[in-house]
């Protein structure tokens, strides 16, 4: 199973090369991977449906106790089959849709990687694995939305999706860490069994809010719903796969997965059901106001995600059953409708509902697919969508919380769904042919086959619902509910209240369809064209953030070296001075040192050099005097038995002088530019830091040395590292990692200098 999850990443590595070398065959072979994975997961369905999850664990970061764990239970199975099954359709459809685009290989690489990431997320057996794959899906989504990266709109939509879902991902990480801390384990089976512990813990509220933050951003719940329609900038198969059938359902997956742990409180009900209900209405209303097929479908996806959230929020067994049914139905009909929209765009050259019409005769199979999917969306018998809608009504009508209100809202939302189904599924194919379709051309077979398969499956499941109920749906429901269930589905429940509601839904939807044009005409002119974005708040926030960053950069990074230096020294001085004061000043008294003459001479050279630097009015003189200070210091090293240091210091000083001379050579003549006040300030600063460092040295020398570290090095240098020069052994063996870091810094600094010089040179040439 480990291999099954990860092989998508391997395929992603080879996809670009494969598509470049063998464009035709790569496109034919690509769908085989998701198909194979689909069959692989299907082969595990026996034990999983009996409630025996498949668990695989491999060590990942053993030193931190983190395993790579996979956990395939009923819920994971449902998602794995959706991901690979819909994936198969998308992979089948994309080559024909792109029609030999030369970046096909790249697209497939991201798609493979995305599929693997989705499988990893939904099959993750612990929180760390889940989070890593969760973020990978967001990253793939970013790359796929921005696939058409030469268009400004795609780039900003991709960035928006990344920022929103990435921000949610951070919240999720924080929530996971809190949850893991409360339970004391990151492993999913342990977590699922500790619901009561979490619900009664004082940290329940932050955990819930953070997890919901992750789920709501990913599943485009209000007020984060704005990113999903903008993500339609991606090629249509991507929208069908990521932004309707799979990735946006991850938030729903998270809610379902952690229902046994978090659900069942008043807060959960209010937050999840409330947000879900609001999203469902907002999405539905915006959907019928649009004209672009993809945007209509995107808003209706938002609405469907809202319904799913609402149902999980209500959380009764009936509601969970309805949610799982809707998850499957929606994935089937929505991916089909998206693929139809893509095929229309490809074959008829338009996605505008006002221009499309009467295409049933020209694209018969596509029309069959679209009509089946639309009927499923509208919830008509004998499709699976009908069973789903009946169960939604049954669940809400028996809801313990505001049953009438919820049923009424759902009636409105489902009515809007019916409208969307008519506009997107029936509108383009029925009625009179629109005149503006000169671009029409016949479709390659995969373009109608891919949408037809899920739509036909929706019909099949409606006719024989109990074919999948015990194997696929019942185990998933049992996982979310944390109790075994015995759901039996039936197409016909007799004449009951739900049937009445279904009929009412249809009436509401058809009424909206009939009066839509008149209602639209009543709206302000600027609303008539559709294209609602709803991201004004996000844009404002982003702009404010950038402005804040700019302001802060102007203050902190003003580009004047001396201010940086002053800030650095000031901070160092402040922190050291405070520590020094707190420690109670100098211990003991200072005796006048008694040194040999040569030691006094060395000190004299250093002091004289330093004084010369400050008073000289020649640059070269200053550099030479500075060098004298350095040589004096290396003299001190020699006197006190540190030949290594002395040697290095000596070489550094020499090279530094050479560098200084090379730089100074080009500077203008020495002129006094600073005012006396500035010079006084600099002098004070210098005196202060010098004095403080001196005090610090006295202070450190007055403390007894901690011996065991250096003793260890001295004792082990020869036996363990075969070297007598302890300094060098520390550098290249005991603390080699530090040295590695330091030389990396050196290399980067040198490249930085080189870059600066190069840019100066090219500037000069430019002029």
């Amino acid at each position, binding site marked *: 199973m480990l291999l099954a999850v990860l092989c998508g990443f391997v395929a992603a590595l080879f996809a670009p090369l494969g598509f470049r070398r063998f464009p035709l065959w790569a496109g034919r072979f690509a769908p085989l991977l998701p198909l194979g994975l689909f069959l692989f997961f299907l082969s595990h369905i026996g034990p999983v449906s009996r409630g025996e999850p498949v668990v695989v664990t491999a060590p990942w970061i053993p030193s931190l106790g983190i395993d790579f764990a996979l956990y395939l239970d009923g819920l994971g199975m449902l998602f794995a089959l959706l991901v690979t099954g819909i994936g198969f359709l998308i992979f089948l459809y994309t080559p024909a849709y792109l029609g030999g685009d030369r970046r096909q290989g790249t697209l497939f690489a991201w798609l493979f990687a995305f599929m693997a990431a989705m499988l990893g997320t939904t099959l993750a057996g612990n929180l760390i694995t889940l989070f890593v794959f969760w973020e990978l899906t967001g990253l793939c989504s970013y790359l796929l939305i921005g696939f058409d990266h030469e268009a400004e709109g795609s780039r900003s939509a991709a960035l928006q999706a990344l920022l929103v879902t990435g921000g949610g991902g951070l919240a999720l990480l924080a929530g996971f860490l809190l949850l893991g801390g409360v339970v004391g384990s990151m492993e999913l089976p342990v977590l699922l069994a500790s619901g009561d512990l979490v619900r009664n813990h004082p940290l329940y509220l932050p955990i819930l809010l953070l997890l919901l933050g992750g789920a709501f951003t990913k599943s485009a719940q209000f007020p984060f719903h704005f990113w999903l329609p903008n993500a339609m900038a991606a090629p249509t198969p991507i929208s069908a796969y990521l932004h309707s059938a799979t990735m946006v359902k991850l938030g729903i997956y998270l809610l379902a997965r952690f229902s046994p742990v978090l659900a069942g409180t008043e807060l959960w009900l209010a937050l999840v059901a409330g947000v879900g209900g609001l999203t469902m209405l907002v999405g539905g209303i915006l959907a019928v106001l649009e004209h672009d097929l993809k945007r209509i479908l995107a808003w209706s996806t938002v609405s469907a995600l809202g319904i799913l959230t609402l149902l999980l929020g209500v959380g009764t067994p009936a509601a969970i059953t309805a949610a799982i049914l809707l998850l499957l139905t929606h994935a089937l009909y929505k991916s089909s409708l998206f693929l139809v929209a893509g095929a229309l765009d490809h074959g008829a050259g338009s996605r505008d509902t006002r221009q499309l019409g009467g295409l049933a005769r020209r694209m018969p199979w596509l029309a069959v697919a679209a009509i089946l999917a639309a009927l499923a969306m509208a919830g008509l018998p004998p499709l699976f969508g009908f069973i789903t809608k009946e169960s939604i009504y049954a669940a809400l009508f028996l809801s313990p919380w505001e049953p009438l209100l919820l049923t009424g809202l759902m009636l409105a939302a489902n009515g809007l769904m019916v409208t969307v189904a008519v506009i997107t599924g029936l509108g383009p194919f029925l009625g009179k042919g629109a005149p503006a379709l000169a671009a029409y051309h016949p479709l390659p077979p995969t373009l109608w086959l891919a949408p037809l398969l899920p739509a036909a499956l929706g019909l099949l499941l409606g006719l024989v619902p109990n074919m999948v109920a015990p194997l696929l749906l019942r185990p998933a429901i049992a996982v979310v509910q944390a109790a075994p269930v015995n759901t039996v589905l039936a197409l016909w429940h007799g004449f009951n209240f739900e049937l009445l509601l279904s009929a009412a839904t249809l009436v509401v939807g058809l009424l909206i369809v009939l009066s839509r044009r008149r209602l639209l005409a009543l709206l302000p002119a600027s609303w008539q064209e559709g294209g609602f974005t709803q991201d004004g708040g996000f844009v404002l926030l982003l702009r404010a953030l950038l402005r804040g960053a700019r302001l802060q950069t102007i203050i902190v990074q003003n580009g004047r070296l001396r201010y940086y230096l002053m800030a650095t020294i000031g901070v160092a001085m402040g922190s050291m001075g405070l520590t020094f004061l707190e420690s109670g000043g100098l211990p003991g008294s200072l005796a006048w040192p008694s040194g040999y003459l040569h030691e006094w001479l060395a000190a004299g050279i250093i002091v004289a050099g330093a004084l010369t630097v400050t008073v000289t009015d020649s640059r070269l003189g200053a550099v030479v005097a500075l060098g004298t200070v350095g040589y004096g210091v290396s003299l001190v090293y020699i006197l006190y038995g540190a030949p290594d240091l002395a040697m290095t210091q000596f070489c550094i000083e020499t*090279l530094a002088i050479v560098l200084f001379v*090379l730089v100074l050579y080009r500077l203008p003549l020495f002129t006094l530019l600073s005012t006396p006040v500035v010079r006084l300030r600099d002098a004070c600063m210098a005196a202060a830091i010098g004095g403080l460092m001196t005090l610090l040295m006295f202070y450190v020398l007055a403390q007894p040395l901690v011996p065991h570290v250096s003793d260890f090095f001295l004792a082990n240098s020869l036996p363990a590292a075969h070297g007598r*020069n302890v300094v060098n052994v520390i550098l*290249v063996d005991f603390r*080699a990692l530090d040295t*590695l870091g330091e030389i990396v810094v*050196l*290399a980067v600094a040198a490249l930085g200098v*080189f870059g600066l*010089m190069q840019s100066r040179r090219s500037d000069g040439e430019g002029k």
Partner: protein
Amino acid sequence: MSSIILSTTIRLLLPLLLLFSVFLLLRGHNEPGGGFVGGLVAAAAISLYALAEGVEAAHRILIVNPRQLIAGGLLTALGSGIIPLFLGRPFQSGLWLPHSLPVLGHVGTPLLFDLGVYLLVAGMALLIVLSLMEEE
């Protein structure tokens, strides 16, 4: 900036200095020295040569670009740490040849690491010095 004295001296000094820098590198493990100071000495020697004979000549005797020296040094140092991974030991554990070699003495991955430091430091100093000189 051509001086007969400097260019005559450097012809004698350059091989000596370079040899000395390698000497420093090799003895570093047991006596004062090491890759860092060795690299600095080598850089100083080449800089001196560049002062006497010009930057072009210095590039000629270097053969490789200073940037390549930096990259090579970094890779060598990193590689010395990675070798133990293949033998199932942690990153950067010291591995030693069982017997001492003539001239080189006891050889192990720390020496390789030091060689990396040597190359990188020399490359870094030369990159800065030579590109500053080229500006003129």
